[in-house]
């Protein structure tokens, strides 16, 4: 059976896209590696506590469940096109068997992941990404630690700190590496999100959580786990001005997000550099990528929060439905409602304003020591990156070939941004032939698959 549409990703973008298309009559499947629909923002535990917008999302998810095939706990590791033009979404099932799913159209809604920056001791257990701490809380009802430091840049640090403090952790401080704006002039305010910003600010005050700008965690200390951090006061380029040591058992750090675009790149979708330099999938007004039959929505097209993701998903769903009707010979291409397009413009502008307000400044590189691991998987310290550069490696790719950062399990997802910064170039689109680890058996099945050239 060939689906009219296969959606990859069950966050706000994927669910909105899949539901819009299914309600228009298309045969839809949605694939997600997680146990439950939700993605990162609407991640919830088996017995979820109330959260803004979650009830509505769960209603949409239930509506989708009755209209489409949901393949949860299925990971997509490759996207290919057969000679007949149809696409194959290659999944692995929970028992690791290969499951190729045939599709006329695909919507890539794979979201993003945290962008960490390396610092001495960042590989000690107890150091988590900010999103990781949030995922433990939202998806598992687990508070990441008792005495927690939240650090990095961007407004996402606020819900993380407020969530942890509300769940009983002692949050010793939110250290925002950028500054100047302060909460009062926060870009959230410009978009009528005053209530949300004020709510987080009030939470921090109530729980006596200090919010400090131009500060960063520049080292973590401990034997087997983190026991303390060095917090630095920074100048505007993030060079260290002064330091103090703070005892804690957990650190949650995040310097923005990295859009997950591997599947689109595998198929040859054109990319562009976002405001913050991240490679993202280029899409037109209808969320179409440059490859026929392939749409993208949400963070793979640029980071801008869950509302933008959901809007892009709905728009993609409407355009995909119109494409399906046109090919089925039905009249009317069905224009996208203008109000959706205008709202998308507003939220895109907001996303870009956030990226401009919270850039990563070059001074972070001065926090590194020679023995600081840049790549956690292959355990490549800064000294080896520098050695590769002294041997003539001038770009991230040749550094990778000589010193091996990004060659391990995570395939550069975690260190890729840092290595690009060290090389002095914007991050390039990932070149991963396989988006998720896969067994040899599944690979063998692939070569037997008639839909693959």
């Amino acid at each position, binding site marked *: 059976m060939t689906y009219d549409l296969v959606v990859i990703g069950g966050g706000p973008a994927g669910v909105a896209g899949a539901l819009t298309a299914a309600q228009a009559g298309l045969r839809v499947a949605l694939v997600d590696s997680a146990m439950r629909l939700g993605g990162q923002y609407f991640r919830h535990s088996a017995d979820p506590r109330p959260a803004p917008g979650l009830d509505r999302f769960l209603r949409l998810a239930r509506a989708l469940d009755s209209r489409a095939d949901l393949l949860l706990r299925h990971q997509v590791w490759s996207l290919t096109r057969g000679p007949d033009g149809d696409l194959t979404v290659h999944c692995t099932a929970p028992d690791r068997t290969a499951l190729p799913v045939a599709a006329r159209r695909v919507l890539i809604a794979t979201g993003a992941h945290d962008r960490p920056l390396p610092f001495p001791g960042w*590989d000690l*257990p107890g150091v988590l990404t900010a*999103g990781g701490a949030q995922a433990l809380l939202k998806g*598992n009802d*687990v508070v990441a630690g008792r005495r927690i430091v939240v650090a990095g840049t961007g407004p996402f640090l606020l819900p993380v700190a407020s969530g942890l403090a509300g769940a009983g952790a002692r949050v010793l401080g939110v250290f925002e590496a950028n500054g100047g704006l302060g909460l009062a002039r926060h870009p959230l305010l410009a978009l009528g999100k005053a209530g949300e910003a004020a709510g987080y600010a009030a939470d921090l005050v109530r729980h006596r959580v200090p919010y400090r700008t131009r500060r960063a965690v520049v080292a973590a200390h401990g034997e087997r786990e983190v026991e303390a951090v060095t917090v630095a006061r920074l100048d505007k380029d993030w060079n260290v001005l002064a330091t103090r040591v703070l005892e804690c058992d957990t650190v949650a750090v995040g310097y923005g997000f990295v859009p997950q675009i591997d599947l689109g790149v595998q198929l040859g979708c054109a990319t562009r550099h976002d405001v913050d330099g991240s490679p993202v999938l280029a899409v037109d007004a209808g969320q179409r990528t440059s490859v026929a039959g392939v749409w993208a929505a949400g963070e793979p097209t640029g980071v801008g929060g869950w509302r933008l993701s959901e809007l892009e998903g709905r728009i993609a769903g409407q355009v995909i439905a119109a494409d399906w009707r046109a090919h089925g010979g039905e009249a009317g291409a069905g224009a996208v409602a203008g109000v959706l397009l205008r709202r998308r413009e507003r939220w895109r502008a907001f996303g870009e304003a956030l990226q401009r307000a919270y850039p990563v400044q070059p001074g972070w590189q001065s926090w590194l020591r020679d023995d600081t691991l840049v790549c*956690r998987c292959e*355990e490549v310290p800064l000294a080896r990156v520098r050695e590769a550069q002294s041997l003539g490696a001038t770009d991230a790719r040749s550094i990778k070939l000589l010193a091996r950062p990004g060659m391990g399990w995570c395939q550069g997802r975690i260190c890729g941004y840092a290595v690009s910064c060290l090389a002095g170039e914007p991050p390039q689109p990932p070149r991963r032939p396989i988006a998720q680890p896969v067994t040899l058996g599944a690979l063998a099945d692939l070569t037997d698959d008639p839909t693959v050239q």
Partner: protein
Amino acid sequence: MTFHITIDGRPVPVTPGQTIGAALHAAGVRSWRSTRFGGRPRGLFCGIGVCFDCLISVNGRAPERACLVEAAPGDEVTTS
């Protein structure tokens, strides 16, 4: 309602719906793997299946990402 899994034979409590990684972290087991070269301890980092720091063996099946696998009663996880 809680059930147990074991890590190297030791029991760890789980609330239904938690991942193996979340249950271990909540029980104070924050590292369960050593790196190949430096022997550095590793546990959860990204929490969403991206970093591969949390690799573990589940009922003899390895490597699994502890942050992605929902814990089931009686699961035996072993460290390396």
